[in-house]
């Protein structure tokens, strides 16, 4: 039996949950409601009056090739960011886990990038790869590679993926390292005595035992790639070239606040909301079942 504290009466429990409820209401339910409401209207270019169009905004959006392209861009972007940031983090965590001397320093240094705000990280990477003054771009030029993410779509995508993953690696690293250290040493040793070499051990013991951590990071990273990478994209490419890096959340911004099409922007937010909700439900329903041992 789970032990619970029982509060008598109604007022104390209400008071205790109130702060969280207020925050959720103000910052989630209210804006989400507004977005749903607005998505049913078209505003005139000056924002003076709006006209009810029902699901017109959605119909228009789903027929728009740019919007559909943005879906594909988002998929490529978020899968790449998740794979890169989790893959590199896992690799570093495996190395750190084997380290005895100096692991404290190593860990501290690896955590620092997490403290850099996404927008700042974006500016940092933008300067390094700037086609005229960027250090990395210049060295690439010396090596005979003409780097230009302002014109080249693949390079632009690569750069925002790397810049978005960079700070994220620290976060994932921490979780992976904690997960690895939670695996009892003797289990690994037993596998070694059973004849399993490093990679066999990783595949058959470490990876399955790490799966709850991996699953958690997967959910968190996908949500991160969907929403929180706005700053990086805004500072480095502003969604270009030719919308090659315009992910859904960036399109919400550019259509709504640059293009002043508030109705469409709101409709996009609603679709995004539904999409993330759906993704999370799928992840929890189908993947989570397999990760608990």
């Amino acid at each position, binding site marked *: 039996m789970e032990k619970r504290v029982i509060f008598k009466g109604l007022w104390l429990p209400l008071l205790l949950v109130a702060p969280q409820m207020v925050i959720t209401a103000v910052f989630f339910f209210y804006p989400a409601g507004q977005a749903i409401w607005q998505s049913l209207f078209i505003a005139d270019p000056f924002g003076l009056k709006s006209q009810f169009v029902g699901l017109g905004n959605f119909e228009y959006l789903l027929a728009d090739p740019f919007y559909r392209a943005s879906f594909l861009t988002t998929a490529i972007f978020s899968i790449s960011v998740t794979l890169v940031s989790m893959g590199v983090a896992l690799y570093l965590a495996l190395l750190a886990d084997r380290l005895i001397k100096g692991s404290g320093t190593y860990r501290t240094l690896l955590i620092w990038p997490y403290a850099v705000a996404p927008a700042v990280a974006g500016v940092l990477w933008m300067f390094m790869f700037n086609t005229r003054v960027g250090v990395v771009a210049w060295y690439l030029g010396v090596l005979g590679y003409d780097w230009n993410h302002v014109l080249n779509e693949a390079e632009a995508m690569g750069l925002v993926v790397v810049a978005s993953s960079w700070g994220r690696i620290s976060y994932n690293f921490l979780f992976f390292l904690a997960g690895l250290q939670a695996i*009892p040493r003797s*289990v690994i*040793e*037993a596998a070694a*005595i*059973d004849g399993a070499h490093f990679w066999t051990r990783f595949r058959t013991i470490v990876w399955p035992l790490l799966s709850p951590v991996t699953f958690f990071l997967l959910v968190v990273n996908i949500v991160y790639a969907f929403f929180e990478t706005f700053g990086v994209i805004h500072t480095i490419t502003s969604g270009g070239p030719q919308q090659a890096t315009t992910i859904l959340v960036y399109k919400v911004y550019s259509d709504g606040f640059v293009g002043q099409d508030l109705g469409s922007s709101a409709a996009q937010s609603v679709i995004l909301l539904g999409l993330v909700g759906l993704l999370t439900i799928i992840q929890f329903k189908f993947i989570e079942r397999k990760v608990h*041992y």
Partner: protein
Amino acid sequence: MATLSLQDIHKSYGATAVIHGVSIDVNDGEFIVIVGPSGCGKSTLLRMVAGLETITGGDLFVNDARVNDDEPMARNIAMVFQNYALYPHMSVFDNMAYGLKIAKMPKAEIAERVGKASKMLQLEPYLQRKPRELSGGQRQRVAMGRAIVRDPAVFLFDEPLSNLDAKLRVQMRLEIKTLQRELGVTSLYVTHDQVEAMTLADRMIVMNAGIAEQIGSPLEVYETPATLFAAQFIGSPSMNVLPGTGTGRGVQLANGVTIETAVLCNGPVMLGLRPEHLVADKAGPLVVLVKMSEPLGANTLLHGQIKGIDQDFVVSLPGVHREADIKGERRFSIPAAATHVFDAISGKRINA
């Protein structure tokens, strides 16, 4: 089936030496127990044999082949860990089959071997369960099964019973011994429990601070402990040790009483008297002030002090004695053959 040989095995972490040269030749099928207090290096020694710790000095042979630099998997050993170290995400069957699958054994043979081992260990009804669905004793058996199926040259046990409750420990102890006899596999068993050591061992290594104090059969160690440490560590309750002066075939204690000994000794010595060898004797030389008693049923432990010596003294008398009857001054004697004399400085047994 194998012999195991440790020759002058040393271990140090940087400048800190923790094992100072242990040597033993283990015969085929022999059950060796390494016993000692925590921190004496017994687990480290076992882990060096397993290949989980590097050997910093000396040689280790399995079947006359030097295996110092071999990986654990190449040494043909199996180990049972203190916390069992079962793979939590695998069923009992997969836990046992893991090593065989890695060795790429045909499926039919894996099933046969696991089937045989699980029958021997009464694990057949649980093969599809996960470790978390098993009791402590069952997990212990799975860990044993995992070792058995691989048919190794040597079994290593690292305090395998210390996580079980007292009753189960006694039962599993017997099971381990029966199994080891049945399979005839050379075994090395680490424990801090001297009762486990006494009951399981063909021969035991008594370890203290990285040194093998004595290597011998349980009764050898009990009857003729080589050092003061071995004398006090083996036997329960532990041996009474009193400082004194050797006077030929006797030891004069601090209170002037002389106890007859079987050996010749002179100068400062330590006299060892096992509590169970003391005999109630109205004319005995040892006057004990009994303060407390602990009835154990088969025998009674008396706690007190020898008159004139400020040191705790324990006597174990057969049968039941009421505390009220036994309290106060009691006289005891001890046969000369049951006394043990040790050098006061080196702690070594005097045998002359």
